[in-house]
């Protein structure tokens, strides 16, 4: 078939005749535009970042309400099952979905929101390396998340806990479809994360502005890079585990069925080889955010930048060797236990470096307690608590008393919420003016912070006591005689204070947006007098980001365009901010064009998943979407050749003017 064409196989080198690359597909190419359509088809990293953020905040409420329901259930003891708010079945689904939602649909995507929005800005790029893949990641994540949550309506959510130990997750012990939703939903979300991780890693590695060497990258960029590398290596492992689980459940294999020769511990190993790096995947972006916020409001450079970078890398690296600390009680043998116990302890060292270096950054500074700074300090204080309780778990014998009690629940909420979520809130307040062009109200922000801090400690602090007093986790209720009543009530009250804290954030958005609409204030490109490149361009940034890609000579380039040192090493201003920032008015920059295909392709996957669960016809439909999406994608040039024939401005690009950063996601590869 191949060789049957005119003049076959002549030896002389010849170019194939160039034909016009005409897009082939049912749809004509979408063109920018406004309204919802511009969001659905966008490939702009900023819009995608905003969508990630919005969806993550939505799921925060979902996961949060699930958490609150858990707390209501546990507020008081019960003596019989029918006194309860939720039956044991519902309760099990509740904490499973709570954890899955919070981890996979809140914290990870919120970090992805920041990474998407900020990486290109911080490294001086026009967009991420593969804008359409970026859109695909987002839609996959969204549809994966909706798919997971649709399980509530289709026979009940997954009920095995977020680590879904086998064989309790097998069909025999979990006959509803919940676990199928878990496996398939996480595979979809995992594909999304993997694509986005590759994309962002390449963006950082390849697309830095001239002069920005690795050791001149902002801390946030660094931590996101480490996170993406962790994801790239961790996700395939959980994918394997989930596939095996799916084969067990849907096709009758016995990978995790001990009575047929399967091994229940295999799942534990596979899950935690992923699961432990995952917790650093959650916290490292937050660390990155804090490393941006603290120097800005201390008006000092980050203390020991190289140490901060290398400790981040060390955390990521060591995170691979400690997974079995989740299995101290599972009978892996004293030698393994000892080895993993030591490995785990020593993670405290690089993490400690980070904490102490933040303190040293603040030391001697002129601290401004803006809301982002408060949240950042909150992270330093709260994460330390979680970290230290983590070290007490790493002492294996002690952990055999602590594991699967509320002491652990206390630990991980301190690191997940006190570390991850606090850091992300710092980021929300910090970059809000950059993204939306107005600041969130400081007054509401401070209320937000303090109520949240108090609520947080009241909720999760008592859990340490409860755990040491012997309260197990994942129990739908407890009886009167155990003496858990008091602290559970405290924790429940705390959780509602915490919820009010979170609510204040949403109120703040509302209030501040309203105020901005009534009395618009121009915050300018650099409202905080900050340090990195994203503050050099207008707020909100123009679609093309930079008028001119800056050439970087310093870590904190933007700062050093504004400030220098005098002889005593004190800060002196050398240029006015207005003179340093860009206007954002350059026209005719060639940008990646929007596309329908990512959403079409992403839309197919959940249907394939439904198909596997319910009826293969759904899968046929899903596969058709995927194939159509992939094919249309491959046939559509990444740049719309028509785009610059539209009224673009004086500086219409020359035909060769495709920007390198968006060229050719090689058609057959994509």
């Amino acid at each position, binding site marked *: 078939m191949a060789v049957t064409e005119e003049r076959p196989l002549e030896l002389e080198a010849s170019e194939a005749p160039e034909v016009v690359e005409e897009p082939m597909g049912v749809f004509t190419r979408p063109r920018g535009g406004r309204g919802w359509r511009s969001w659905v088809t966008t490939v702009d990293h900023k819009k995608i970042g905003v969508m990630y953020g919005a969806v993550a905040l939505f799921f925060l409420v979902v996961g949060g309400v699930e958490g609150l329901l858990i707390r209501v259930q546990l507020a008081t003891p019960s003596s019989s*099952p029918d006194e309860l708010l939720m039956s044991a079945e519902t309760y099990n689904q509740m904490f499973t979905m709570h954890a899955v939602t919070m981890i996979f649909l809140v914290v990870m995507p919120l970090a992805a929101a920041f990474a998407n929005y900020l990486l290109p800005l911080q490294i001086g790029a026009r967009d991420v390396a593969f804008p359409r893949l970026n859109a695909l990641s987002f839609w996959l994540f969204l549809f994966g998340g909706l798919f997971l949550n649709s399980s509530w309506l289709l026979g009940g959510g997954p009920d095995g806990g977020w680590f879904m130990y086998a064989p309790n997750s097998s069909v025999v012990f979990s006959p509803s479809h919940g676990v199928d939703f878990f496996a398939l939903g996480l595979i979809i979300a995992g594909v999304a994360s993997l694509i986005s991780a590759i994309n962002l890693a390449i963006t950082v590695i390849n697309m830095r502005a001239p002069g920005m060497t690795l050791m001149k990258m902002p801390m946030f960029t660094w931590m996101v890079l480490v996170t993406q590398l962790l994801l790239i290596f961790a996700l395939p492992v959980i994918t394997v585990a989930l596939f095996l689980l799916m084969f067990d459940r849907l096709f009758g294999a016995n990978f995790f069925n001990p009575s047929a020769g399967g091994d229940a511990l295999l799942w534990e190993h596979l899950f935690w080889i992923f699961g432990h790096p995952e917790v650093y995947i959650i916290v490292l972006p937050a660390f990155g955010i804090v490393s941006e916020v603290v120097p800005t409001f201390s008006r000092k450079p980050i203390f020991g930048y190289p140490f901060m970078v290398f400790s981040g890398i060390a955390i990521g690296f060591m995170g691979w060797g400690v997974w079995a600390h989740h299995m101290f009680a599972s*009978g892996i043998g004293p030698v393994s236990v000892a080895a993993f116990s030591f490995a785990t302890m020593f993670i405290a060292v690089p993490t400690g470096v980070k904490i102490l270096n933040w303190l040293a950054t603040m030391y001697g500074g002129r601290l401004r307690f803006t809301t982002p700074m408060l949240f950042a300090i909150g992270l330093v204080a709260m994460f330390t608590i979680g970290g230290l309780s983590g070290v007490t778990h790493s002492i294996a014998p002690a952990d055999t008393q602590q594991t699967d009690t509320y002491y652990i629940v206390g630990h991980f909420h301190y690191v997940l919420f006190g570390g991850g979520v606090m850091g992300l809130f710092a980021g929300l307040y910090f970059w809000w003016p950059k993204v939306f062009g107005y600041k969130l109200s400081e007054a509401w922000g401070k209320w937000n912070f303090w109520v949240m801090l108090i609520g947080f400690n009241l909720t999760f602090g008592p859990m340490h*006591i409860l755990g040491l007093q012997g309260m197990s986790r994942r129990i739908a209720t407890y009886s009167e005689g155990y003496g858990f009543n008091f602290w559970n009530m405290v924790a429940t009250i705390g959780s509602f204070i915490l919820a009010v804290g979170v609510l204040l954030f949403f109120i703040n958005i509302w209030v501040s947006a309203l105020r901005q609409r009534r009395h618009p204030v121009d915050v300018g490109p650099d409202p905080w007098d900050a340090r990195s490149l994203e503050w050099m361009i207008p707020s909100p940034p123009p679609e093309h980001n930079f008028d001119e890609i800056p050439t970087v000579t310093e870590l904190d380039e933007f700062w050093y365009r504004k400030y220098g040192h005098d002889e005593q090493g004190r800060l002196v201003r050398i240029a006015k901010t207005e003179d340093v920032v860009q206007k954002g008015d350059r026209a005719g920059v060639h940008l990646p064009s929007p596309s329908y295909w990512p959403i079409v392709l992403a839309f197919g996957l959940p249907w394939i998943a439904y198909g596997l669960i319910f009826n293969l016809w759904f899968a046929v439909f899903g596969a058709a979407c995927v194939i159509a999406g992939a094919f249309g994608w491959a046939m559509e040039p990444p740049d719309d050749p028509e785009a610059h024939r539209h009224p673009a401005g004086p500086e219409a690009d020359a035909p060769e003017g495709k920007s390198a950063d968006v060229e050719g996601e090689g058609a057959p590869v994509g």
Partner: protein
Amino acid sequence: MTRQGEMSYPRHKRNRWLALGLGGLVLLLITACSNSGRPLTTLDPQGPESTKIQDLAGPVFIVAGVIFICVEFGVLFIVSRFRRRNTDVDGVDEPEQVHGNFRLEIVWTLIPTLILCGIAVFTAQTIFALEEVQEDALPVEVIGQQWWWEFRYDFDDDGEPDIISANQLVIPAGRQIDLSIRSNDVIHSFWIPALNGKKDAVPGRTHSLLIQANEPGVYEGQCTEFCGISHGYMQMQVRAVPAAEFEAWKQNQLAPPVEPTSSAELAGYEIFKAQCARCHQVNGIDTEAEGYSNTGPTPDPDYGADQVANNAPNLTHLMSRSTFAGSMFDLYADTGDGVCPVVSDSPTAEEQHSAGCTPNLVDLESWLRDPPAMKPMAPDGNRGMPNLGLSEEQVSALIAYLTILE
């Protein structure tokens, strides 16, 4: 922001309130944290193993506490000391630009490393110390099932269990017990906080755990690996008794079950063989030989052959225990005059009788009427005890029979 407001309030008065409030809080904390009335607490070890753990964990808590105080006070100090004053002028009162201090950073890398190295040494010692089996340790098999525990004693070492009991593990005090923990369905975890840490019961594997109670008493436990709907209700007890009493208990258990005599008991016996014996064993009943359908396990089922737990507690000496159904309910009732000891004192059957205690008919009867209403179970999936739809006569006949099984 509220500096003005603060000043307007007399300082000493504020301090008094503060002191009062703090004092109250501390008191509250102490009472709310004490160990008494908390049978599951990890902070009150009652055996050598748990003491070893406590001896290791205690100092670690202290180290962690010291670091905690240092860091948090560091935060507070820095935050109050280096705040930007309102009088500071931007561009003039700016901080010195310190980029780092290599030596300092090395120091605070090394110090935690050294601390942890110290901890690591003791950790390793303890890990291996917890594995040391004593010569005279008594082996007991522990089998986790959805949602109760089975215990098997093999005294003559012939590989066949001599005693099969459930939910309440009776051990001689002062002697080490060498548990071999298995599971019959999903992963469970055996945990008696006062005696040792947890050990998972993983299907397909056997794990060992050593426990020893210094003093006679009842030590409560809880399954701690999530195992399905009734995970929270899957509790167990260890009853440590003096050696002599243990011997008596053993003889009683080895004895054949009490024969039914009265007509009610006999009727119950028949119903039992017809309805219950396909899952429950009372030693000596051979359902197959008697022609009853035996869809349940054979007397000594081949554990692990079938994932589904269609096994049920051995009831031969049911009334010698003091709780039933995963230690959720008392087997003996408080007759109202207050003499009957409460469960946690967990007396033997004889003591119960001498104290004038009667079987807890309320809970037992409703258990027979509708077990899943008392404890979440999934009998359709063959997990847990089904509602057998017994008539009231059948229930009372069964109770009559069951309550003689001492």
